[in-house]
């Protein structure tokens, strides 16, 4: 168990291929590299923390996750069981369940994928888009809540050759 809240183990983190717990990868990573944020402000359970102290799934944890995957990264999300019964507190469990629900529906977009040659883009509405690829397909993950029936991904064009854009799967 590594606790780097005080940034005292930078050498260890470098040796282990870990990156800062908060923030995002700036570039493609040459090898699979992990970020390891705690779901709250502590790596372990802190009875002083409330739900407001935990990173929000939609605004922080999920965008961190999908952007890391698009850049050949991984997200190691720390949770800390509560004292006594050792149960995962509801504030932490709800975030894990949110990941599970999204992955149940959309897991193909990230599981077993590799980075595409372009990591990300934005929509015409300014929403971030992250790309992954797997044998035979390219996936786009539009983060946020797009409205309307059309989403334009700026600056990235799927190939024009016959059949290249014919995939119509939406999960």
């Amino acid at each position: 168990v590594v606790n780097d809240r005080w940034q005292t183990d930078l050498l260890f983190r470098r040796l282990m291929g870990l990156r800062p717990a908060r923030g995002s990868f700036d570039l493609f990573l040459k090898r699979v590299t992990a970020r390891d944020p705690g779901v709250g402000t502590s790596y372990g359970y802190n009875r002083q923390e409330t739900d407001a102290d935990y990173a929000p799934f939609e605004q922080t944890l999920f965008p961190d996750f999908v952007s890391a995957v698009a850049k050949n990264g991984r997200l190691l999300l720390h949770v800390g069981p509560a004292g006594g019964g050792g149960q995962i507190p509801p504030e932490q469990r709800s975030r894990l369940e949110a990941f599970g629900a999204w992955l149940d529906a959309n897991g193909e977009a990230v599981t077993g994928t590799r980075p595409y040659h372009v990591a990300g883009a934005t929509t015409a509405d300014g929403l971030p888009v992250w790309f992954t690829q797997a044998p035979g397909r390219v996936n786009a993950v539009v983060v946020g809540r797009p409205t309307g029936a059309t989403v334009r991904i700026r600056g990235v064009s799927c190939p024009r050759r016959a059949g290249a854009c014919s995939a119509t799967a939406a999960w």
Partner: protein
Amino acid sequence: VVTVRPSGGSTVLTFDHELDGTYAPAVAVQIGSVRR
């Protein structure tokens, strides 16, 4: 269902219904194939 087409250097996804946040926090779409 969503259709995908290139348009002026962009990729346009057209859904058969209005998006209303149902897919939050993200919509994942297969946008193309890769030559193997």
